[in-house]
């Protein structure tokens, strides 16, 4: 190993190089809730489109006004072209919002015979799993990503770059774990236990599992109620033919994510908790051999004035306030106090970001300053895109 630099200065994340490289086909924006993932994904998609890429942005749960800025007025699970972009470089932009239930329904319909599909869609257990299972949104985001990739390059789906925003999970890691969790549920011992009797034509199947089974099923029946278990059984049996398909597709999408054409952008706010989540995610991506492009530290406090330190500014503010001077004196004092607090906030945020970089040396970072207002038009997204590019 050659000796590396001791300095903690991280390499600058070059977003433009990433999106301008035709080999980049998927960019996944991930991070904990409330850090600006969706805005980052939208801004990046717009910037790529205006520099000539044909882009589709898959958002999960955008703020209403952000969605409107992209021309998304309804949640219809289909990519819609975003007009009003600067297409002079030959690019295009589509955007869509994920409807997880609908995506799940489509998978069921696509993979089963007509009569069976209806039976599944009507099953109460299916309805609950497809609209509320903790991992369904993540799984369906993966599924949709797979679909967008598979269908790319046609007239209706001209994109060559997919930018994905990940669901607002409890933990950023859920996005990577959920498909596997659903997969292991479908392949799990308990499900085999539930389906075995039916498959083997009755009680004979139970022998495979021995005496424990009866204790298990009778306890579950007591606790959950017989109806629930029988709904699950119907659901599982109806889905049986599709299981292989589900599992395979989840594996395939997972593989897609680890390929060279994919880049993960971890998004964090300059706060302790968000950066801790970012740390977990970065470690996990590395452990799984996933291609990590870098970290976006979002909404760093903006400082415009130069030439006075916070302590100097506060001392001056105090002397102005004590002097009992004219209105302009108290205004000047206010400006100095404001400046001092902005600098202190920015310093603390930088320190948190530096701490991340010290424990993850070599990971490219870009710091994006906070805008004075919320983003809800293309101009705002352009401004963010500009900052993402480090300019």
């Amino acid at each position, binding site marked *: 190993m050659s000796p590396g630099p001791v300095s903690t200065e991280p390499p600058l994340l070059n977003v433009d190089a990433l999106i301008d490289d035709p080999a980049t086909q998927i960019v996944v924006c991930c991070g904990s809730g409330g850090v600006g993932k969706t805005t980052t994904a939208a801004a990046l998609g717009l910037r790529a489109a205006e520099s000539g890429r044909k882009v589709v942005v898959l958002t999960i749960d955008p703020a209403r006004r952000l969605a409107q800025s992209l021309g998304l007025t309804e949640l219809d699970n289909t990519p819609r072209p975003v007009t009003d972009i600067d297409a002079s470089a030959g690019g295009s932009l589509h955007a869509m919002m994920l409807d997880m239930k609908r995506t799940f329904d489509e998978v069921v319909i696509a993979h089963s015979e007509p009569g069976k599909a209806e039976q599944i869609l009507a099953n109460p257990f299916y309805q609950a799993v497809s609209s509320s299972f903790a991992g369904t949104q993540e799984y369906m985001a993966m599924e949709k990503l797979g679909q967008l990739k598979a269908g790319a390059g046609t007239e209706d789906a001209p994109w060559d770059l997919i930018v994905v925003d990940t669901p607002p999970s409890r933990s950023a890691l859920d996005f990577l774990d959920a498909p596997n969790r659903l997969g292991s549920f479908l392949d799990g011992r308990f499900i085999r236990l539930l389906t075995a009797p039916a498959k083997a034509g009755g009680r004979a199947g139970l022998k495979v599992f021995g005496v424990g089974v009866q204790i*298990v099923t009778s306890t579950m029946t007591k606790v959950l*109620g017989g109806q629930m278990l029988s709904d699950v059984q119907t659901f599982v049996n109806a889905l049986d033919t599709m299981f292989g398909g589900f599992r395979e597709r989840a594996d395939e999408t997972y593989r897609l994510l680890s390929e060279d054409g994919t880049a993960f952008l971890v998004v964090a706010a300059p706060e302790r908790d968000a950066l801790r989540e970012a740390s977990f995610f970065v470690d996990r991506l590395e452990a799984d051999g996933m291609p990590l492009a870098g970290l976006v530290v979002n909404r760093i406090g903006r400082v415009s004035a130069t*030439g*006075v330190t916070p302590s100097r500014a506060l001392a*001056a503010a105090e002397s102005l306030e004590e002097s009992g001077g*004219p209105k302009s004196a108290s*205004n000047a004092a206010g400006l100095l106090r404001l400046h001092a607090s902005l600098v202190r906030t920015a310093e603390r945020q930088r320190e948190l970001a530096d701490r991340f970089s010290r424990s993850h040396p070599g990971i490219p970072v870009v710091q994006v300053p906070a805008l004075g207002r*919320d983003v809800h038009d293309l101009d705002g997204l352009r401004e963010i895109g500009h900052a993402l590019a480090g300019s």
Partner: protein
Amino acid sequence: MTTGPTDPSWARARLHVVTGKGGTGKTTVASAIALALASTPAHVLLTEVEGRQGISQTFDVPPLGTDETRVVRLPGGGEVVGLAIEPKAALLEYLQLFYKLGRAGKLLEKFGAIDFATTIAPGVRDVLLIGKIYEANRRRRDGKHKGDAPHVYDGIVLDAPPTGRIGRFLSVNAEVADLARVGPIASQASSITRLLESEQTVVHLVTLLEEMPVQETLEAIDDLRAKGLHPGAIIVNMVREPLLDDTALEQAREGRLHKPSIRTQLGEAGVKATPELVDGLLEEARDHAQRIDLEREQLALLEATGLPIVQLPALPGGVDSGSVRELADLLVPLFVRHAGVGPGSGRVRA
């Protein structure tokens, strides 16, 4: 600062559910509410259900297990007990309690039935999580769950899932009703629903004065009301006081702050007023004014809900176990009825 009704109908609530969009400081606020309630003095249980160990980080104590563990003792004798509720452990405990399972418990685990029930079966997980709180709420000091003995806990605070999921989390009954129509899970769900819909339970919403969290807060309030649950207070977190008065803010917004006199004043105070400094300060003032405008718009939207609103200041050094006590002191007036009565009451810091 508290605005809106200050003696709300829920002043006697026992279960305080705290929700908020990710990043709003939900766990910090839940911890501060627990401290405020404990200050009367009282025994308060603070619970979390998302496996984040947020309580242990906030109070700087070792990670919480599935046992109720004291995390803070206040000078007046009040205390906060922490509990990280974990669905698997809750289910096994529940089965043990009601079915005296023994070997079958291990078998269930081995066959993946526990995993199934706690991760896949919709609603069951939430029934188990809230069920644990339901039990703690009823528990008396003599160990029984009914009778005249005083409650073990005078109040319970739940650091709940975020606003996007809170309605569903709390409407466990509707969730399981379609699936588990009979059996103990279904009847447990009904008892839990009675508690959640009663006046004993209020749901507090933590937000920032930013568009997205406020929007989610308003949607959550509508959702909770539609489901027959009781929204409590809105806690606006990380509020920054304006550093300029309204006249100056208006001038700053329109770029009309008088540059020469600002420059003169800076000079008077011994600051070298370079053009870069003066222009920069005015730009910062304009950003500040715009941010304040936006915050006031958002605050007006929250006020229209008619709920009490408490504003908590941004903590310059971030959150630690000391600063959460400062926040708790600010919550005391709203959360503690008759604050100031009795020894050591209504004050969290020593």
